[in-house]
């Protein structure tokens, strides 16, 4: 099967970034996890299995560095958006 990858905007993440992407997905879709992250981010990320480097990247919110570490761009985007939505109401369009 021919696939969209290579220099595509959205590539298949490496297995090494599995925990990082799981954590981003939970931030996007799991309100309980997102609340625990808001209360104690380090503890939530540790329980999600993120290593020190991944935790620093996520706390810094550096999209390019997260993607370079294997995070899926859409999950980075949505995780950041949902965390921001919990913190304050905003007009996005």
């Amino acid at each position, binding site marked *: *099967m*021919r696939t*969209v*990858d290579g220099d595509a*905007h959205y590539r*298949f993440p490496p297995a090494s970034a599995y925990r990082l992407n799981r954590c981003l997905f939970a931030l996007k879709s799991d309100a309980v996890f997102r609340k625990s992250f808001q209360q104690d981010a380090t503890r939530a990320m540790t329980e999600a299995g993120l290593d020190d480097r991944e935790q620093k990247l996520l706390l810094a919110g550096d*999209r390019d560095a997260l*993607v370079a570490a294997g995070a899926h761009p859409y999950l980075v*985007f*949505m995780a950041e958006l949902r965390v921001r939505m919990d913190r304050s109401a905003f007009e996005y369009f």
Partner: protein
Amino acid sequence: MPDPAPPIVPLHVNVYLPPQPTPRRCYEWGRALGEILGARPERVALIASGGMSHYPGTDRYASPDVDWDRRVLETLAAGRGRELAAVTGEELDKTGNIELRTWITLLGAVGDRPADVYCYEPSWHHGNAIVEWRL
């Protein structure tokens, strides 16, 4: 919503994680779905939702390809929906239209009927359109 509420069957199309289905596969899948629904006694509405020119999480986010979106809508209004089945996955990615796979699936079901294009509203990061095919 009428009472009783009509049954809703969600259909998921993977658009963000390679390997995504090719536009051709989406179209053919929609065509098969259309054949099945056409043989059913129920009245069925197909609703496809997906952003046009949308690059969330990338450097292109604030640069939607609205010209490509407008050409797509012209194609649909002219009743040439099948042409979208020939678009490649690479082109969908390049133009920020990977979510159009949901539209292309629906196109397989409605065929080459001309679409009523009610609006196209580009935002700074997105194209929004409302399109209907009355069967």
